[in-house]
C-alpha cells in the first residue's frame, strides 16, 4: 500500500510543477502589480522602478519563477504584494473557506443520504419524482445564479420584516460584537445564505449517487436473504442496505471535497466572504503572482491528495485495485 501511495504522489510532482509554471507565467503576463501605484498622482518613475525591483518585476520571467519555486520547495511561499506573508493570507482565508465547506458538506451529505435513500425506497412515487426534479434543477443551475436568487429573496424578506435577518456581506458583522453568544449568533447569521447555496448545488449530485447506489443494494442477494431470515424491514434498510450503499458516496465526497473548496470561489465572491475564493480573485485582479500561484499550487495539491485518498479508499475496499 505504501508503495502504491508513493507511486501516486511521485506521479503528481511533475504535473504540479508544470501547472505551477503555466499559472505563474499566465498571471505574470496578464496583470500589472504596479497599476495602482502608477495611477497615483505624483509618483516618480524612480519610485515605480524601485518598487518593481523590490518585487523582482525587473527580472526575466523564468528567473522569477525559479526563485519562487526554490523558495516554495524550502517551505517559503514568499510575500504578497502588500508585504504580508502569502502563507498567513492563505491560512486566514483557508479557515474561512473551511468553515463554509465543512458546514455545507455535512448538511449536504445528510440531505443527500436522506433524499437518495427515500427516493430509492419509494421509487417512482411522487416523492421520487419530486426529489429527482429538484436535484436536477439545482444540479443544472449556475452557482452564481442560485446565489443571486437566494440573496435577492433574503433581502426582500428583510425589507418585508424591517429587520436584517439575513446578512449578505462577509462572514461576520462589522460592528462591535460582545460575548460568546453574540459571536456565535453573528457568525451563524452570516453563514446561512452561502452555506445554503453550496448545500443545494452539492446535495443534488450526491443524492443521485446515493439513490442509484441504494437501488443497486436493494436488489442484492444479501438483502433478500436478510428479509427471508425475518429481519425487520427497517433494520434491513438501515443496517444492511444503507451501510453498504454509503460506500460509493464516501469516495465521491472525498473526491468532491477539494472541488468544493475550489467551487466556493463564486459563492465567496457573491457573498463577499474573505475565503480562498475571494483571495484568489483579488490576487488575479492585482496581478499578485506569488499569491495566485501559491493558491493554485495548493488547490492542485488538494485535488491530488483527495484523489489519492479516494484511490486509497477504493484500494482498501477492493484488493483487486491494490494489486492491479
Amino acid at each position, binding site marked *: 500500500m505504501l508503495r502504491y501511495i508513493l507511486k501516486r504522489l511521485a506521479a503528481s510532482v511533475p504535473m504540479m510543477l508544470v501547472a505551477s509554471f503555466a499559472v505563474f507565467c499566465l498571471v505574470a503576463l*496578464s496583470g500589472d502589480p504596479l497599476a495602482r501605484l502608477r495611477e497615483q*498622482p*505624483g509618483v516618480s518613475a524612480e519610485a515605480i522602478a*524601485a518598487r518593481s525591483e523590490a518585487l523582482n518585476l525587473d527580472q526575466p520571467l523564468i528567473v522569477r519563477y525559479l526563485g519562487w519555486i526554490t523558495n516554495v520547495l524550502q517551505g517559503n511561499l514568499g510575500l504578497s504584494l502588500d*508585504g504580508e506573508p502569502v502563507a498567513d493570507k492563505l491560512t486566514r482565508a483557508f479557515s474561512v473557506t473551511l468553515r463554509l465547506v465543512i458546514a455545507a458538506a455535512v448538511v449536504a451529505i445528510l440531505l443527500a443520504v436522506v433524499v437518495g435513500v427515500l427516493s430509492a425506497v419509494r421509487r417512482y412515487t411522487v416523492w421520487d419524482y419530486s426529489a429527482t426534479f429538484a436535484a436536477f434543477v439545482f444540479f443544472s443551475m449556475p452557482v452564481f445564479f442560485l446565489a443571486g436568487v437566494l440573496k435577492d429573496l433574503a433581502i426582500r424578506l428583510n*425589507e418585508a420584516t424591517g429587520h436584517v435577518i439575513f446578512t449578505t456581506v462577509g462572514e461576520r458583522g*462589522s460592528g462591535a460584537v460582545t460575548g460568546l453568544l453574540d459571536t456565535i449568533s453573528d457568525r451563524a447569521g452570516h453563514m446561512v445564505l452561502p452555506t445554503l447555496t453550496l448545500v443545494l448545488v452539492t446535495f443534488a449530485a450526491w443524492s443521485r449517487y446515493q439513490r442509484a447506489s441504494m437501488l443497486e443494494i436493494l436488489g442484492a442477494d444479501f438483502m433478500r436473504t436478510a428479509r427471508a431470515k425475518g429481519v425487520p424491514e427497517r433494520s434491513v434498510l438501515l443496517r444492511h442496505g444503507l451501510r453498504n450503499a454509503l460506500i460509493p458516496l464516501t469516495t465521491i465526497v472525498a473526491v468532491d471535497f477539494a472541488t468544493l473548496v475550489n467551487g466556493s470561489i463564486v459563492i465567496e465572491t457573491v457573498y463577499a466572504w*474573505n475565503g480562498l475564493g475571494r483571495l484568489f*480573485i483579488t490576487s488575479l485582479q492585482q496581478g499578485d503572482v506569488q499569491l495566485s500561484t501559491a493558491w493554485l499550487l495548493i488547490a492542485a495539491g488538494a485535488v491530488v491528495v483527495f484523489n489519492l485518498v479516494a484511490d486509497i479508499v477504493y484500494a482498501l475496499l477492493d484488493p483487486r485495485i491494490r494489486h492491479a
Partner: protein
Amino acid sequence: MSDSRTRKPARLLVSVVATLLALSACSAIDETSAGNTTTAERAAGGEIVFGAEDEPSGFNYATSKDSILGVRDVVENLFFFAAKSRPDGTLYYEGLAAEPAIVSDQPQIVEWKINPDSTWSDGTPVTTQDIKYYFDNVTNPKNDVASRVGYDLISKLDLVDAKTFRATFRSRYGDFRGLWQAVPQAAHLKSTPGGWENGLNNDPGPSAGPYKFERWTKGESITLVPNPQWKLQPKPTVDRIVFRFLPESSTIPDALRNQEINIVEAQAQLDLMQDLQHVDGLKLEISTGPRFEHLVLNHKDPVVGDPAVRKAIAHALDRDAIVKALVAPFQPEAKRLDNMVLTNAQAPGSEPHGEQYHSADPEAAKRILQYAGWIPGPNGVRAKSGKQLTIQFSAVAGNQRQEQTLELIKNQLSKVGINLTIDTCPAACLFSDRLPAGKFQITLKGFSGSPFPVADARARFGTGGGDNYSKYSNARFDELAKQAAETLQAQEQIRLANEMDKVLWEDLPMLPLFQRPDLVAYRASLVGIEPNGTRDGVLWNAAGWGLSK
C-alpha cells in the same frame, strides 16, 4: 484594474488649483471648514459602514507600498494634514493655525504654524518634531517613498518652536501649500519595529484626526472610533466608522439595499448606476475632478508624428458623441474636456482651448489629409506614396468601456479615410513595456491629476518627462512650464498653465476626452455627506457625518 476606483486623482487636481488658489480663496478657517453639517442635524451614536474597494496594505501613505486609495481613505481622518481640499477645490488648513506664510521670496522661505489644538490621540501635542521626522524620512534616498515632489526642493527645515517651522526652498516652488499630507506620529514610528517602511503595517498609531484607529480585521474591515483629543470642529457624533472591504463592485447594490453598508464611493459606471437607481432610500451624487480619459498620440511614430495626421484625427473625432455615449447616460451634464493642463474643468481658471476641434469637422480633416498628400484609395482608405493610412490603436485587453470607446473612434476616423486597427495586450504589457518604449501609435489612457497641475503637465509633456509617452518636445512649452512651476502667485500660475495648454493644442500630443465621474451612493438616513472630487474624496469631512435625528 487601474480604472477601478478613480477619484483619487480627481481630488488631487482640484486641490491643485486649490493649491494655486489657496492664497486668495481659502483663508477662512472656521467651524464649517470641513463641511456644512451641524451637530443639531445629527443623532448621537450609531455606526456608519463605508464600502471600501481596496484594503490597506499598511498605513504609511508616503511609501510606494502603501500609496493606494484604500490607505488614503483610512488615514484621511487619522493623520496630520496641513491642508485638505474642499469639494470646490479650495483648500482649508485643517492642521494649521493659519495659511502658510511666505516669509521670503528669494530664496523662497515658507512658514507653517501647526494648530495649537492639534493633538495626538495619546494626548501628546502635534509638534514640529513630527514634521521633522517625516521630512527626514521622505527625503532619505534609502527610504521607499512614492513621491518626493516638493520635499526634494527644501534645502533647509528650521524648527522655530514646537508649533512653528520654516522651509527654505533651493528653487521656487509654487505648490508648497500641498506639502505635509498624511503625517504619522514620529514617536510611534520611531518606537515601532519596522521603522519607516514597515512600522505602520498593522497599526497606524496615535491619531491627529477626528477619529482614531480601533481595530483591523484583516480581509474584512477596519474600525475607527471618535478621537477624544480632537478639539476642532465638527466633532464626530457616531460611535464608529467601519471600512468594510468589498473588492467586487457587483456586491455594492445589494449591500446598500440590505443596509449592510451605508455609503460607498466608486467610479461611476452605467450598470452600477442602473442597479443603484432601483434601491429605495438611497441618494446618488456624482462628482468630478482632475481625473480624465484621453488619447495619447505618439510624436515619434512615422505616421502619427505627421502634424497633418494628428490634426485630421482631432478634426474627425466627435468628442461630444463619445461623451454622450459613455458618460451622459448617468451624468447628463457631462461635457468634453478642452484643457490638457488644468484638467479639472470645474476648478476656477480652467479655460477651454482648441476651439477648432470642439465639434467634429470631417471635411476639414479630409482637406488637411488631401493637402498633405494622403489620397483616398479604392477602398476608401487614404494612402501616400503607396502606403495606406492605417493606424494601430493599442488597447488593454478585456476592458469593456475601452472597447466601446474604440468602436466609436474607429467609426469616426473611417469617415475621413483613416483605417484604425485595434491591437490589444495585457495592461502590464501596454503600460510597462509599450508606452514607456514608445512602441505604439495611438492609445487610450486615463490619468489621475494631482493637486499640482503644472507638475503633472511637465511630467506628461515636458521634454524627457517621466509620463511623456507621446515623446513630445517643445521648447516654448518647456519654458512656460518652468515659469509656471516657479511662480508663487496663484493667478499667474493659472495664466501660465492656460498658455501651456494653448501650445499643446497646436501640437496635439494628446486629445482629452472627458473627466471621469465618481459616484457617491449613500443611505438617505445619513447626513453631512458632501462628495468631493479631489484627492481627499468623500471622506474629507467624515467628522461631520452622522445619522439623521
